[in-house]
């Protein structure tokens, strides 16, 4: 018998509702239970009024109604009152009418339901309608409770069925229909004693997979072989001694009793919920993110120029802006663009196929036959890196290759996707690795295998240490906490680049550890997405990072202007790459600081910062004249400001992202065409104001342009696509052209540190 868990989304409050569907594996004609099928004999559970939090928790409450450990039908914790809660969960054999049978669906999360009075009450669904009862004889299940502690707690889960679409069913048959119910109504098992004691006792247990109901239900008491007998008994009061008999009918319950039972079950549920809530609060604290108080930037912002004064001061930006304004006063910028598509209007899609290189072809062939590789001894590091990248992409990376990579004394191990790696495999492999020459270790997406004692375990046995380790990347190590990181950092004294993106458990202690042991050696630090790090608390640590070249704090939304200014005051001289994407609290003050102190800045990412205005752009343009990679997305800079920036400081641009910059238009295009000869990659996705002529002008003038992304630019048509004269450029984002081939077009290969060489002692 198969059991299938379904999550049925019934609106926002029911996001955790689980439906369990049982059907007899033999009976293939029992189709999937569809919500849309309003057939009869379907058990239908509606879940209303339960918020998702509770629903999720409730999963554990019920563990499973079909635990494997139940031999012989039994129902837990009912023995105390010496009652039997016998019920049939699967209707298939009950009704014998196979086409109409659907699986049993009931909600383990103790759903709410509408009572007959129309109110919403947590409890079981009671049966209202006259079921379509099969006249055939029913096979009934005998379910006896046993004394074991591992009893399933079945509180108020209900089975029933309706014969109309989606109707609630109530359990509470008028007496004259009793006989008919012998065909196996699911029963609500309720007992006032069931709730409290057993639930409390079992609450703390860690539920095994079976208990949680995720295991396959193979031979449990639910499987309806022949000759089970059903006892349907519903007891509400313990002092009511309903005799235990194997009755075929068993449903001697009136609707009144059912209601009482419901209420008791509800009570039980509430108590259990409260207890569980306490436990969950404790666990949640570990993962919670603090909401850091907002720093007041009031006094700083007054020192900024206002936007009206833009262009009135001196400096390259203002000059450029003035010139721009003069120019547009005579003719609109759009009219200034005189670009005609070239005469040979050839269809680019069929011209000049790009020949795949032999290296690519053979790497691909090798990757596909990766199982046969015996040794990677002769393969140099850059090729190993490309090979593992390709293997990760085609999902063939496995332990075999990893063992090959760690053989000998490797200098580089780069695996960009370690999601397949288990803890055990990781430990086994790395224990055998001689790490003394290892310079680069990249284990990205290692959430599964990177646990806190991983490095301690690896390094302990042999006299292994990461003495040459200069570059480490553990992106996505979501289980790595401060202590685990400390183990690593302590054993790798020569670290210069640490990438801890998305390591969400790390707090400021981790940064302090890094600062204390590495200090001014550290050149690159990536802590994007580490939300638990409080920026203010790591400022003291930043005093030690004097030579930091690359810093990424993207995604930490508690970063403020004050943090930026303090950080820049320490490492502003050396910083070359800053990633401040999604740090939404930043304002023009930060740009002023950056512009004022970071003359060597090569790469800046200020995506999604909508508090930045043209004023900030001016500071940036005046201060950072040699930016090569500028990544803007959804910023509010105007066309003129952007153009003025490019005019004044855009000569060194090699990569420009203007994603979703809705105001960018012809002025920018003119400036780009005029100034950015070195531009290699341009992204103008979703910039609707750049039309065919403007883009044609850009592409034809920027002769080095290799990559152009035009996603979402419906205004770009064949006029441009077939009319431009740049032979090198690859245009992505139009016409369902392949995308991924060109994604890494401009990524340099085998990069060590981005902006400086590794120290001589480590170079081989």
């Amino acid at each position, binding site marked *: 018998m198969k059991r299938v868990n379904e999550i049925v989304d019934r609106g926002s409050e029911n996001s955790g509702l689980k439906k369990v569907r049982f059907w007899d594996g033999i009976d293939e004609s029992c189709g999937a239970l569809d919500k849309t099928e309003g057939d009869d004999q379907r058990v239908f559970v509606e879940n209303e009024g339960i918020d998702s939090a509770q629903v999720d928790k409730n999963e554990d409450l019920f563990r499973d109604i079909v635990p494997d450990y139940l031999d012989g039908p039994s129902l837990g914790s009912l023995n105390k009152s010496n009652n039997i809660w016998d019920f049939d969960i699967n209707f298939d054999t009950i009704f014998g009418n196979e086409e109409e049978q659907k699986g049993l669906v009931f909600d383990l999360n103790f759903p709410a339901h509408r009572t007959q009075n129309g109110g919403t009450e947590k409890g079981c669904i009671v049966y209202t309608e006259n079921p379509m009862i099969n006249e055939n004889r029913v096979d009934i299940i005998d379910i006896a409770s046993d004394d074991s502690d591992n009893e399933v707690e079945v509180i108020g889960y209900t089975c029933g069925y309706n014969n109309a679409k989606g109707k609630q069913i109530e359990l509470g048959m008028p007496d004259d229909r009793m006989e008919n119910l012998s065909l196996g109504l699911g029963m609500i098992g309720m007992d006032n004693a069931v709730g409290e004691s057993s639930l409390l006792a079992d609450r703390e247990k860690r539920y095994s997979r079976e208990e949680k109901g995720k295991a396959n239900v193979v031979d449990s008491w639910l499987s309806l072989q022949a000759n089970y007998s059903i006892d349907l008994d519903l007891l509400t009061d313990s002092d009511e001694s309903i005799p235990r008999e194997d009755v075929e009918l068993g449903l001697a319950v009136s609707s009144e009793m059912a209601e009482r039972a419901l209420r008791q079950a509800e009570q039980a549920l509430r108590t259990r919920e409260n207890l569980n809530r306490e436990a969950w609060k404790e666990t949640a604290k570990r993962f919670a993110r603090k909401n850091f108080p907002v720093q007041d930037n009031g006094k700083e912002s007054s020192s900024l120029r206002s936007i009206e004064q833009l262009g009135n001061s001196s400096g390259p930006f203002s000059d450029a802006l003035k010139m721009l304004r003069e120019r547009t006063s005579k003719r609109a910028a759009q009219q200034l663009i005189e670009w005609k598509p070239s005469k040979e209007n050839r269809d680019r899609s069929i011209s*000049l*196929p790009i*020949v*795949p*290189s*032999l*290296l690519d*072809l*053979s*790497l691909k*062939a*090798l990757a596909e*036959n990766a199982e*046969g*590789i015996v040794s990677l001894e*002769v*393969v*140099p590091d*850059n*090729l190993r890196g490309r*090979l593992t990248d390709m293997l990760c992409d085609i999902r063939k990376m496995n332990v075999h290759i990893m063992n090959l990579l760690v053989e000998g004394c490797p200098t580089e191990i780069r695996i960009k996707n370690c999601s397949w790696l288990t803890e055990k495999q990781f430990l086994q492999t790395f224990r055998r690795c001689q790490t003394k020459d290892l310079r680069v270790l990249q284990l990205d997406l290692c959430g599964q295998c990177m646990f806190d004692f991983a490095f301690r375990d690896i390094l302990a046995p042999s006299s292994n240490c990461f003495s040459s380790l200069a570059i480490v990347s553990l992106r996505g190590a979501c289980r790595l906490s401060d202590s685990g990181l400390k183990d690593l950092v302590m054993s790798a004294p020569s670290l210069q680049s640490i990438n801890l993106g998305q390591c969400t458990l790390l707090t400021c202690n981790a940064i302090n550890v890094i600062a204390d042991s590495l200090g001014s050696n550290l050149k690159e630090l990536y802590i994007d997405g580490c939300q638990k790090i409080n920026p203010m608390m790591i400022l003291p640590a930043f005093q030690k990072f004097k030579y930091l070249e690359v810093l990424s704090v993207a995604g930490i939304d508690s970063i403020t202007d004050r943090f930026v200014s303090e950080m820049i005051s320490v490492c502003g001289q050396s910083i070359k790459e800053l990633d401040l994407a999604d740090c939404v609290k930043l304002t023009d003050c930060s740009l002023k600081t950056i512009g004022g102190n970071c003359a060597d800045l090569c790469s800046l990412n200020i995506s999604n910062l909508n508090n930045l205005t043209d004023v900030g752009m001016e500071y940036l343009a005046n201060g950072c004249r040699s930016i090569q990679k500028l990544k803007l997305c959804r910023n509010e800079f105007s066309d003129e400001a952007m153009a003025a920036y490019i005019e004044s400081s855009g000569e060194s641009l090699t990569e420009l992202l203007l994603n979703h910059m809705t105001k960018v238009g012809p002025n920018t295009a003119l400036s780009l065409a005029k100034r950015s000869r070195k531009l290699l990659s341009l992204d103008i996705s979703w910039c609707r104001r750049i039309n065919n002529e403007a883009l044609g002008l850009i592409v034809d003038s920027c002769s080095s342009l290799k990559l152009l992304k035009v996603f979402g630019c419906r205004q770009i048509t064949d006029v441009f696509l077939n009319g431009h004269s740049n032979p090198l450029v690859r245009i992505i984002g139009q016409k369902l052209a392949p995308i991924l081939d060109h994604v890494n077009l401009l990524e340099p290969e085998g990069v060590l540190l981005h902006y400086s060489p590794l120290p001589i002692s480590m170079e081989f």
Partner: protein
Amino acid sequence: MKKEDTVKLISAEGFEFVIDKKAAMVSQTIRNMLTSPGSFAESEHGEVTFPEISTTILEKICQYFYWSLQYASGKETEFHIEPELTLELIMAANYLDT
């Protein structure tokens, strides 16, 4: 084929492959050897020796050159690589920058 249009590639075992210059230029390394100013022995005699590349691999490389020319002219077929050659082929292709 006229002599001026061909180059000779010599493998580690001494086998000589005579191919079109145009084909050989697919490899950036060979192109640089043959066209750079200054007198490389290779450009003078039209011969390039590869002491680290074995014959089977060099043969496959020459096949790739011709396949590449064919592909660029529009005829797109598949270039099959036997699995046992892949590792050495990768190293050779990396060296030849092709």
